[in-house]
């Protein structure tokens, strides 16, 4: 084999191995896992379930956010929806936003869920589940609390919320003594 061809093939092989190693390293250092408390909440922009209008998490900067991931086929999501709606009505005038993210669902089912549960807080639709990896969501429901500076605070509640979970973490997000 001519020397130049051999060198070119060796260089190509080294390049392929280097690219695979780089990909492995990137995945190791950027895993799909839950962000730690105190870290900035991963931003996203998704369409509103009813209006289709784009809603970004960053647009709620300056307010405490209760970020709730759900799907219409999830039983515990039905149980906690009234709690979230009640918290929204209680705290919306105190600088708190409840933001629902519906994923892995049919549009029509999500809409029916919202109508039946009487949800009035904003709900966005993550059709392709793009936010799930950024928040390390592994099931529904899961809830995060974000302070007015856009940082993750309080507890990450993986599973159905209780009234106490909500009250305690909303106070933390508002910077009030829990």
């Amino acid at each position, binding site marked *: 084999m001519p020397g130049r061809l051999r060198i070119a093939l060796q260089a190509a092989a080294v390049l392929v191995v280097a690219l695979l190693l780089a990909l492995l390293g990137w995945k190791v250092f950027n895993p799909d896992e839950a962000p730690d408390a105190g870290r900035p909440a991963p931003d996203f922009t998704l369409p509103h379930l009813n209006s289709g209008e784009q809603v970004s998490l960053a647009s709620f900067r300056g307010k405490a956010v209760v970020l709730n991931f759900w799907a219409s086929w999830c039983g515990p999501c039905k149980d906690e929806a009234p709690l979230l709606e009640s918290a929204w009505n209680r705290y919306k005038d105190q600088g708190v936003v409840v933001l629902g993210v519906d994923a892995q669902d*049919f549009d029509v089912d999500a809409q029916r869920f919202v109508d039946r549960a009487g949800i009035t807080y904003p709900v966005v639709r993550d059709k392709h589940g793009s936010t799930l990896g950024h928040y390390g969501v592994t099931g529904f429901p899961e809830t995060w609390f974000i302070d007015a500076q856009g940082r993750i605070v309080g507890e990450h509640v993986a599973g159905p919320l209780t009234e106490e979970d909500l009250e305690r973490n909303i106070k933390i997000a508002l910077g009030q003594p829990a």
Partner: protein
Amino acid sequence: MTRKLLGVLVLALAVVAPAAASEQNPTLPELERELICPTCHETLAASTSPIAERMRAFIRARIAAGDTKSEIKDQLVEQFGESVLAAPPKSGFNLLAWVLPLAGIVLAAGVVGFLAYRWSRSRKAEESGPSANGRFSLDPELERRVDEELARYDA
């Protein structure tokens, strides 16, 4: 020749006709094998998750409404994204997933063929290399110079 052409046509029909029938009249089991449950990442056929059950109900309803296989898949991709397909679509960037393995096989076959050709040529050269007296023949230029030197020596 005509018989061969006829054979090719029959073979083509045997491949295309069932595919066209499946496209126009899809069945639930075949769609279950070609779609992935978004929560458990298994095929619908293997999944018993709530969303898989809901997707099955959707597919049944769409088959009853007369939708083609492509139409049903398109509607599910619209709801869940392309990750719902068990195999990537043969278009756009996803085409690479189909083309690259084939290109890799062709390239590997080419490299193996090239190496085999070189190896067999060097073997032939080795076998035909030694002259009748068992020694290797010299480079023509070197042979000419040796002859010149010998001629000068004899002179």
